[in-house]
Every structure is written in C-alpha cells, then in structure tokens.
C-alpha cells in the first residue's frame, strides 16, 4: 500500500498565517536542534525553539500559542545565524507573538513597572521591550 505524508493536510490557517507574517517556510526545518543549542532563553522556556517549529509543522498551534517560549525569546538572531537550513526562527517567534498581540493581549504591562525601574532602564530597553511584548 502506498503511504503518503502531506504537509498541506497538517497546515491550518494559523500555521499559514505564521508563514505569511514571518516569510519563512516551517517545513524547511529538519530538526537538527542547533537553534535550541544556542538559544540564550531556554531556561525560561517551556518548549525548546526547535520544538516550537516542530509543533507548527504538525499543525499543533494551540501549544505554541500558549507557550512561554515566545515571550522569553530575546530576538537575538542566534538561531537565525546558526540554522543550516536558512530558517529564520527569530521571525517565526515574532510572527507567533504578533498573532497574540494583535488580539490586544499584552504580555508586559507598563503600568506595573516600578518608577525607579523606569528611571533606571535605558530608553532602548524600554522601547524595545514594549515593542516586542505589547500590542
């Protein structure tokens, strides 16, 4: 009997949207794990970066949308620069965040930052943090 595996059957609207926003092909990943090996955020992550992309390949978006990983990602481009398949996982992380942020669900709350921290932090940290973690 002929068995065929078809990525298109696994691909749902959200995976398609993530590919569109990121400009990346999640199926190009062959799960070597180099992205996760170099990721600086893994201690604060529940899914490894390569697991995020694996789940997307399998169409399991719910786990990805509720994971901590995307919020612990620092957009450092280590995964991007090390991926032997040219997959820009930094952009995929951003696309997943955008799907949530565009529903007006913020991850960080400016109002909750203590005044002394606002005074202490460099402007670049405040602006980039709130650009990445709020809608």
């Amino acid at each position, binding site marked *: 009997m002929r068995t065929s595996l078809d990525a298109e059957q696994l691909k749902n609207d959200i995976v398609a949207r993530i590919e569109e926003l990121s400009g990346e092909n999640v199926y190009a990943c062959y799960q070597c794990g180099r992205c996760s090996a170099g990721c600086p955020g893994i201690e604060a992550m529940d899914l490894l970066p390569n697991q995020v992309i694996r789940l997307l390949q399998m169409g399991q978006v719910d786990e990805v949308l509720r994971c901590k990983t995307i919020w*612990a990602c*620092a957009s450092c481009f280590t995964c991007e620069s090390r991926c032997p398949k040219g997959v820009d996982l930094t952009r995929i992380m951003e696309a997943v965040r955008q799907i949530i942020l565009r529903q007006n669900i913020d991850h960080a709350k400016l109002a909750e930052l203590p005044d002394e921290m606002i005074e202490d932090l*460099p402007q670049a940290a405040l602006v980039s943090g709130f650009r990445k973690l709020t809608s």
Partner: protein
Amino acid sequence: MRIPYYPGCTVKTTAKNLEESALASAAALGIELEELERWNCCGVVACLAGDNLMEQLAPIRNLIRVQEQGADRVVTMCSLCYGTLKAANALFRRDEEKREKINQFMYEEPDYEGGVEVLHLLEVLRDEIGFDTIAARVGEGLAGLRIAPYYGCLLLRPRELGLDDPEDPHILEDLMESVGADVIVDPYRTECCGSYQTVSNIDLVAERTRRIVGSAVRRGADIIVTSCPVCHFNLDRRQRDVLRIDREFSGLPVLYFTQVLAFALDLPESVMHFDLHEIDPRPVLESKARTAGVSE
C-alpha cells in the same frame, strides 16, 4: 573629515558615557561626527513581521535626513540603532514594492531609494582612521590591562546585517590590541545578554549576566568592553541582581569601547562619565593601566 552622525535616544540620556567618549575620541583622531539635524528615534528594534511597514518609517526618515544634506553615509555608535537603521535600509534595497509603498505613504518627504550607507563607529575607526594609526598614536597605551570584548547580538546578527563574522568576530579584539591592551577572547562574547527581557524578566537577564561576566572573570579579565547601551545596562547594572541569585559572584567593570579609546588617548575624564557605572572602572584603570592614566 566630517561624517553625519545619528545619536539615537539612549546615548543622549542614560548612555552619555558612550556618546561623549565617542565624539571626543573621534575628534582626537581627526573625525568630526556631525549630529544629524531633526533626527528621530529609530524605534530600537525592527518589527520582523513582513506586513508591518509602519515600523519602517522611523528609521527611513532618518536616512532621508542624511540624504537631504547631500551625504551618502551615516555613522552610529549604538548597536541597536545600527541594527534598526541597517535593517530598514536593507529592506529598501531588496524590496521594490515595499519601498514604493513607504515612499508613497511618506508623500511629504523626498523619495528614498536606499542610497545611504549605514556605518557603525567601529567600522569608521577600522576603515577610515585605521587601527594602525590608532596604535601609532597610543603607543604602549594600555599594556597590562586585560580586556574581554563582548559583542552581543546586533553587531553580528542577523547574518545579512552583521559587520563581522557572527561566530568568530575580531573587530573589537583588533581595536583593543591597537590601544595596547591584553585581549582575552571569551567564548561568551557573541552570546545574547537577554536584551529587552530586562524590562519584564530580570531573573533571565541576571542569569545571562552571571554567565557572561563570570566567564570573563574566570579568564582573568579586568574589564569587559561593549558597544550597546542595553548590553551595558544588563552586564553592568544587573550585576546587582546577580548577587541575589549568587552571593559568591564577583563582578567586573563594563566599559564602552569608546571609553577605553578615550582613556588610551588621554582625554579628560569628564567625557567618560564613569559616574554612570554600577561598577566603578576607575580603580582598575588607575592601578592596571599606564600610570599617566586618567587626567582631568
């Protein structure tokens, strides 16, 4: 030689130690960095979602300001500004459709085609002044001072935009050698400090700082040098937070490469703003570096 210069928000406020030491060092080496008129915040990070063109406007407007004054290049000393300006510029060079859309949207501005070159001050020091010239000027310089360069992310990544080999860079090492310092090549030098996570996840950043600074300490460094105000904050100021998770931790001063340069060039201490540092670099600079040292 005069080159238009884009400061960005942070060097004008919390990172005066970067700006003033950079301007003074460049001037001492014969380069006048001329602040761009009517510059605006670049947005710090480029939105990586392909459909968001709004966040490209801020960096592009700055490049239009450069073009308006008839210049074809602009220099910045902040790694974040460098990454953001360069990313928007690369998009304009690569994607005609998006370029046209943004140009049309900003109808009040002259069209921009991607003609400005975005440079980091490190590139100007290497390519316009030359590390040899700096070495000749500084002489024995900082012999005895053990410096661990730290790159962080945006000088090197993404691959398309970095100014050196992302896995084995040497521009900072070369500069530090040119001022006579003893250079320590640290394996953590290209690892991320946690970046903007410092706003919402201090523990994550404290752990990064513990590892990065700890590695430099184990290798016998006296100081770490960097070029990014967020890296500087995380590696310097967050050492206080490292002590909460590791009481045994002993830290190091973290300087901008421009401060080391200004120090080597014997410029007044007032341009270095050591008062802005969590870990005061003066004791180690005074004890380890040449005795001429800091002068007012």
